[in-house]
């Protein structure tokens, strides 16, 4: 497997930039321990010892044995460095949602963005409780708010008319 294929395998199971960076870091540590430690290293135990999340463990396990067998002492650092460079050129979209997403929600969001915006896109998720009733995102240097505020501004004339009618009725009475 080439470095690009290996990277695409990791990217396929990582939807945020932090997940991708964290999993490549864990992979580096695991490979270093595998190649340079006299002890036999079990992947699951290693991940648990590093307090990896369940999603991380599931991701590592989903890559398969062929993925880890593609690394050796000679190509490991070269491939990992190539991956680090690839991360830098992948498009990242900052997403702002009003609640702290659970991992399943992150995956769901990631899949939606990869389906709707781009195959290799990464998310940078932030929590903003003021964005009630929607979300916001920053893409290509432009921030867009699609929260309740957006919808209220979108229907500003209707709301103003309701208020004006109400005020007129109030003065009439």
């Amino acid at each position, binding site marked *: 497997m080439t470095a690009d294929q290996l990277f695409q395998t990791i990217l396929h199971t990582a939807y945020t930039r932090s997940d991708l960076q964290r999993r490549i870091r864990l992979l580096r540590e695991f490979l270093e321990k595998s190649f340079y430690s006299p002890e036999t290293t079990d992947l699951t135990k290693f991940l648990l010892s590093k307090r990896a999340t369940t999603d991380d463990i599931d991701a590592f396990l989903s890559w398969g044995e062929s993925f880890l067998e593609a690394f050796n002492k000679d190509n490991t650092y070269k491939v990992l460095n190539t991956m680090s460079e690839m991360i830098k050129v992948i498009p990242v979209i900052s997403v702002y949602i009003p*609640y702290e997403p659970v991992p399943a929600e992150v995956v769901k969001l990631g899949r939606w963005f990869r389906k709707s915006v781009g195959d290799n896109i990464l998310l940078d998720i932030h929590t903003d409780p003021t964005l009630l*009733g929607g*979300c916001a995102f920053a893409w290509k240097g432009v921030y867009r708010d699609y929260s309740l505020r957006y919808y209220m501004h979108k229907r500003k004339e209707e709301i103003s008319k309701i208020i004006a009618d109400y005020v007129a009725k109030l003065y009439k009475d």
Partner: protein
Amino acid sequence: MSIELLQSILPFLTVLLMIMQLALFFVLFRALFSRQNDDKPIDEILAQTKERSSSIIHRAFGQANKILVSAELEGIRQLSQEKRSGRELVEALEKHLKVVETTLQDHSSETARKAEDSYKAFIKSTEQSIQAHIEKNDKFLTDRSSAMTAHAQEQLDAFIKDVHGKVSMEVEQALQAARNEIAEYKQRRIQVLDEKIIDVLERTLQVALEKKLSLVEQSELVYKALEEAKHENSFS
């Protein structure tokens, strides 16, 4: 008068002297010629000659005195006549002078009268001319001032109209600018009020819905918002 008398008798005296000289020369010549011929003694001849010449001279003087007396008498007579004539002449002259004076007075009076008449006529003519000139000038000034007044009035009317137009236009522009500014301000104020109302509503809804919306509902709203963004091509 004696000079005039001498002047009148001078030709007679001259003729008389010439005669006497001729007579003297004749006596001398005859005496010389007689001596050559008669051989008489010179003293005798001279004495005769002298006697004769003295006689001649004496007669000549006598004649001359007669002539002079006659001339003086004639002169006196003429002088008296001349004196008489002078008085007459003076009288005539005085008379003539009086006539001349009278004539001159009359002539002067006439001339003065004519001069006065002429002067009066000239004055009258001059007055008429000046009056006509003044009237002409008055008329010219009146016409000119009327024309100038009319022109000035036209200019003033045009200026007032122009100023009125400009002022009206500037006032209209200022009013329009003020109306626009008021409308813009009103629009801005309405916009600010709308923003504030929406903010109030938003905060109200946040407070009201925060506890009401479940995570699932919030998640659904997030995807609904993302679909809206996608529909608006916000990801392109």
